[in-house]
């Protein structure tokens, strides 16, 4: 399968201040998004996630490097016909109703009039906003705007969807719904690039991830390849044993309602803990081996930089 988007050594700096000073934001970003995958682009605040996306969409112009979208220069209008985009903190024309708003964008893509109403109805239903079709956007909450924004990103039935923090501003239920929609897009054969700093979401739905820190990509690849399967430590929750007795066996984290959460790094010591609990006639409530998570990888990448 080919690549939908290719960035090659993209650099961008902004000139700021009264006495102009160049501040580099992107310091040579290179990655490719393959057809049909969900690509997670993550990084801490201010790492350059949104700037990268703005470069791809032609909102800002890179100082150096090339960006190819569907094997064309990303600035060609034709390259953007199959792209859908949801910006971070979407602000839309608040004087329009949700249906008018979607109709406007559908018109920009040249969707024929007889097709528009049906498509808009379908999209509003998909994002759970069908009841708000006649409401002006100024009366929408942030979560509602996010949903309508997503519908807007899909109005041209794109094959490549770019979502900048699509799960921001949503309640847990809304996040789950949007996550399901993103997975549905993948099932429909679409490619998705999305940014987030909510690692749980990325871990749940992404095929590949890139971690960007301070304008540079620190880590990129399939999640399974990036995260090691080795057990880092085991979390054991026990009761009926004195905390002081457990201290030499591992890191005692909390002790609430008689229960102690112990972080045991050495696998052989787990057996010692269990023997001790049996001797003291205590109870083992949980025993969870912890492998490396995306969070560990992320924290590590940020620290290293």
């Amino acid at each position: 399968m080919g690549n939908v988007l290719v960035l090659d050594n993209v650099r961008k700096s902004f000139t700021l201040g009264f006495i102009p000073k160049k501040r580099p934001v992107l310091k040579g970003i290179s990655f490719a998004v393959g057809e049909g995958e969900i690509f997670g682009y993550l990084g801490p605040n201010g790492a350059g996630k949104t700037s990268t996306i703005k470069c791809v969409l032609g909102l800002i112009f890179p100082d150096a490097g090339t960006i190819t979208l569907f094997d064309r220069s990303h600035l060609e209008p034709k390259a953007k016909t199959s792209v859908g985009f949801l910006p971070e903190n979407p602000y839309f024309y608040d004087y329009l109703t949700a249906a008018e708003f979607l109709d406007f964008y559908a018109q920009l893509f040249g969707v024929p009039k007889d097709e528009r109403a049906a498509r808009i109805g379908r999209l509003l239903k998909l994002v759970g906003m069908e009841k708000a079709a006649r409401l002006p956007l100024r009366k929408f909450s942030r979560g509602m705007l996010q949903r309508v924004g997503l519908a807007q990103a899909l109005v041209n039935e794109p094959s490549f969807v770019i979502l900048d923090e699509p799960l921001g501003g949503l309640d847990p239920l809304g996040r789950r719904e949007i996550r399901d929609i993103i997975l549905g897009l993948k099932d429909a054969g679409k490619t998705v690039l999305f940014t987030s700093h909510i690692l749980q979401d990325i871990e749940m739905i992404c095929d590949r991830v890139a971690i960007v820190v301070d304008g540079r990509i620190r880590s990129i690849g399939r999640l399974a390849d990036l995260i090691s399967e080795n057990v880092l430590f085991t979390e054991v929750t026990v009761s009926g044993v004195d905390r002081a007795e457990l201290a030499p066996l591992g890191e005692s984290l909390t002790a609430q309602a008689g229960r102690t959460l112990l972080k045991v790094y050495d696998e052989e010591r787990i057996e010692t803990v269990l023997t001790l609990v049996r001797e003291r006639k205590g109870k083992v409530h949980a025993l969870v081996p912890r492998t490396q998570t995306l969070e560990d990888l992320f924290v590590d990448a940020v620290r290293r930089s």
Partner: protein
Amino acid sequence: MTVKVIALNTFKEAVRDRVLYLLLFFAALAIVLSRVLAVLTVGDRVKVVKDVGLASVSFFGALMAIMIGTGLVYKEIEKRTIFTLVSKPIRRSEFLLGKYLGLVLTLGVMLAAMTVIYLGLVFAHTLRFEARLLLPIAFLFLELILITAVAILFSCFSTPILSSLFALSFYLIGHFSWSLETLIQKTRPGAGRTALQVVYALLPDLENFNVKTEVVHGLPIPASLFLTAAGYSLAYTAFVLLLAVLIFRRRDFV
């Protein structure tokens, strides 16, 4: 096609903005107040109604062009609505042209509304429809399409308040630049005179669009004058829009 869609959306945005109706209300008030001035005047009252009414239409037309024109593009950038728009398969020049044409359409409708009020008031005085009064309004429209382009040019790189000041200065300079012509005639030939001539050529001459006095006093207006004014307005507008596109094309939307 894209230009048309953006233009119609801009029109929708402008007509759903309350500021526009506030301006229209004050314009109507100013036109009707010309009646009060007429009562206070010795002489031809109808002429005063016609003259002050036309001046009101002209002033509020320019005010509308400046106030909406300087805000619209800036608002798109400030409110970040431009992010979704530019990410669509449209060129930035199409966006700018769409915005401009939407504004021209809005001004056309507002000017029509003011004209109806104005002609109604004149009709109440003379009891006949004076088609000749449409002529200065047509000239005014030519002036407004130029002022709108200037307002959009400034709003491509400046805040609404500064852009309004710039556009207002353009309007005022444009209406007084004819006095430079008098100065040129009184200056002896030489470097000074050439410099003045260059400045005069660069500055807009909005008095080209002012035929109020001729119409109100029933003086003849040669047909070629309208054609010259139309050519001047279109050429100047095209130049200003081209400048706006050049600035807008390379702008980063941060």
